[in-house]
């Protein structure tokens, strides 16, 4: 049972995806039922495995055997880290799948949607359970594919089609680095399995620079998948997908895969101070700049998307400064719940507003959507890190650990807290308080029970998942840094500054945003910069290719043609049409051959 269970967890979603693709068109209930059943089975078994003590041997299958050079297994690893992640992924997936019943009830492509979700769940679980880098890379790419499918769910909308393409391509850039990193690690140690890698990492003892290079390359995978600077651009655009997809993939689980990867190789990362330094700085810069961009967005989902990037930045920062992988995993854990909750709340609001996403057309929803209001308040406070809510415990832990390591990183992280508090409060105040700003807001209605029940469950998780009595159950080595009063004060002052600023600006329910900073609203013009760069590279590449085509390939082809024509012209001289000339050539040829054979 214990060895079979992980395989069932992994393959149940794949089976359901296949079945939905084959038979899902027949009935909506069938496709939803299959997907939810696979997720619930997975969730139940994950909890069961989680409650079993110690590591579990799940066995492995040798897939590619090029020994002694390389052996790639399909093997599952079940240590504390992956068991925790299994629980998080499967629990949240189950809730989102159930929520989707309500959200997608009237949408096109129901079976396609659930098949995509199941495929995603399969790929994500593959990442969680993989016991070697190659297998992880394969599932990493599968996650990219399923994300592509789900973002492009409304493929007839041009923006969605572009967004899924962008997400896929931007991720490919990071994945290329990841692949190079795997290659460097393998070349030096001769293994791709995590457990063996840890033992053989001594192969890098002579050349720490190479180890740092390999780890930073692997980190490129995280930059892509976890939307860190400078590859963050795809995540806000991926909000074109259905909201439950944003919730599951682009907030709670898939984007956390990058952080999970770092946690998986944490013991190796620790050996390279340079790599940790790079990781910490990328995380800190991401968390601050994404916060800046988030302050001026108007689309409810985009605000949340930037907050996700920002929170992922905290997790990556935590990898860079913490002494154990449990610190980033702790924030991943709490963030998964409250961010999933926030997105589901946003979905509930969007559905109640008949697919309106602009927060400046909402307002006054507090009376119309009471359950969503309460759940969203819990989510927002958790996201801010308000004392008593889950985000407070995990985020403050990271920032306190940062204070001990590096002053500049600490102040950047504290700045991030203020920004988070500001844009989160702005979102909440504009959407729920004040008076309705449009007809849709005036006639908004609460969502059905199938949607609100997951909200309530996640709301509870958002409040309590960070509390010591919960975290002790899931984590065992969380550090308790001794920090001075100044550090704690700085964090809380930043939090309340952001909160008060937002209250002052938005509490009275202004009709439109009183602050306008185009530089932030336009995402620091990074997207435009990338578009320009891509265009330049593409134009430059196209010009070079055209020149190559004209002057190298065409020239070669023409020379060949001229050569063939010339040869034909010369040889045609021999085709006189005269029988006797032929026999003369023949005789002459024979004589030449005899001469060569006998006298040379």
């Amino acid at each position, binding site marked *: 049972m214990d060895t079979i269970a992980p395989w069932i967890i992994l393959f149940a979603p794949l089976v359901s995806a296949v079945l939905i693709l084959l038979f899902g068109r027949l009935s909506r209930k069938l496709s939803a039922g299959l997907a939810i059943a696979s997720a619930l089975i997975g969730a139940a078994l994950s909890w069961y495995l989680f409650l079993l003590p110690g590591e579990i041997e799940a066995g492995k299958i040798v897939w590619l055997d090029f020994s002694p050079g390389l052996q790639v297994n399909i093997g599952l690893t079940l240590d504390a880290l992956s068991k925790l992640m299994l629980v998080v992924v499967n629990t949240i997936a189950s809730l989102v799948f159930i929520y989707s019943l309500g959200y997608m009830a009237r949408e096109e492509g129901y079976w396609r949607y659930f098949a995509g979700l199941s495929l995603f769940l399969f790929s994500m679980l593959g990442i969680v359970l993989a016991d070697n880098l190659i297998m992880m890379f394969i599932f990493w790419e599968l996650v990219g594919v399923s994300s592509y499918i789900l973002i492009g769910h409304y493929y007839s909308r041009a923006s969605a089609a572009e967004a899924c393409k962008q997400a896929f391509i931007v991720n490919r850039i990071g994945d290329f680095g990841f692949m190079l990193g795997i290659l460097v690690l393998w070349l030096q140690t001769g293994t791709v399995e995590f457990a063996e890698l840890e033992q053989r990492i001594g192969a890098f003892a002579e050349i720490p620079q190479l180890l740092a290079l390999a780890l930073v390359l692997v980190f490129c995978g995280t930059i892509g998948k976890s939307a860190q600077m400078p590859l963050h651009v795809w995540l806000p655009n991926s909000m074109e997908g259905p909201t439950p997809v944003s919730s599951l993939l682009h907030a709670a689980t898939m984007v956390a895969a990058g952080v999970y990867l770092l946690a998986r190789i944490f013991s190796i990362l620790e050996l390279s101070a340079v790599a940790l330094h790079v990781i910490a700085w990328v995380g800190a810069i991401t968390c601050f700049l994404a916060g800046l961009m988030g302050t001026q967005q108007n689309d409810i989902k985009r605000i949340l998307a930037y907050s996700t990037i920002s929170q992922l930045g905290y997790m990556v920062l935590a990898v860079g400064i913490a002494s154990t992988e449990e610190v980033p995993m702790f924030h991943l854990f709490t963030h998964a719940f409250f961010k999933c909750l926030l997105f589901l709340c946003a979905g509930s609001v969007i559905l109640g507003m008949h697919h309106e996403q602009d927060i400046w057309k909402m307002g006054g929803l507090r009376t119309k959507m009471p359950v969503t209001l309460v759940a969203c308040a819990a989510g927002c406070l958790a996201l801010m890190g308000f004392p008593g809510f889950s985000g407070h415990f995990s985020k403050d832990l990271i920032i306190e650990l940062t204070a001990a390591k590096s002053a500049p990183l600490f102040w950047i992280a504290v700045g991030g807290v203020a920004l988070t508090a500001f844009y989160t409060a702005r979102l909440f105040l504009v959407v729920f308080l004040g008076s309705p700003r449009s007809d849709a807001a005036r006639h908004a209605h609460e969502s059905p029970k199938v949607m609100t029940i997951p909200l309530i469950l996640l709301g509870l998780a958002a409040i309590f998942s960070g509390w010591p009595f919960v975290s002790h159950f899931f984590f065992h080595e969380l550090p308790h840094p001794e920090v001075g009063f100044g550090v704690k004060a700085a964090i809380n002052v930043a939090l309340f500054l952001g909160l008060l600023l937002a209250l002052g600006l938005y509490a009275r329910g202004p009709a439109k945003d009183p602050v306008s900073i185009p530089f932030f609203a336009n995402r620091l013009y990074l997207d435009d910069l990338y578009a320009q760069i891509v265009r330049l590279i593409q134009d430059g590449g196209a010009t070079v290719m055209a020149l190559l085509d004209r002057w190298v390939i065409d020239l070669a082809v023409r020379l060949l043609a001229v050569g063939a024509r010339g040869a034909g012209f010369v*040889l*045609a*001289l*021999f*085709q*006189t*049409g*005269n*029988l*006797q000339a032929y*026999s*003369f050539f023949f*005789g002459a040829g024979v004589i030449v051959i005899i001469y060569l054979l006998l006298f040379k």
Partner: protein
Amino acid sequence: MVTLAHYLIASGLLFAIGLAGVLLRRNILVIFMCLELMLNAANLSLVAFSRFNLTQGLPDFNGQVFVFFIITVAAAEVAVGLAIIVALYRAKQTTHVEDLDALRG
């Protein structure tokens, strides 16, 4: 005294005459006859070699056996060749090789 050299010179002359005829004459029948002449030049030298290559007082008969085979094959070849020439004449109403230039490049 007639020696091997005499025979070989005669054979060479015959072959040269035949070759010249093949290369220079226009009538395809004459060309055909010249071909036969070349064959017979070869036969003559074979017989001559056979006659003068004595082992234990006896000629080497291999050459003569060869000549019989060549004569037989030549007879068959004449039959086929003449049939082709007749068919050619029927098709083209000519026996001049200059008129047979369908293969000109």
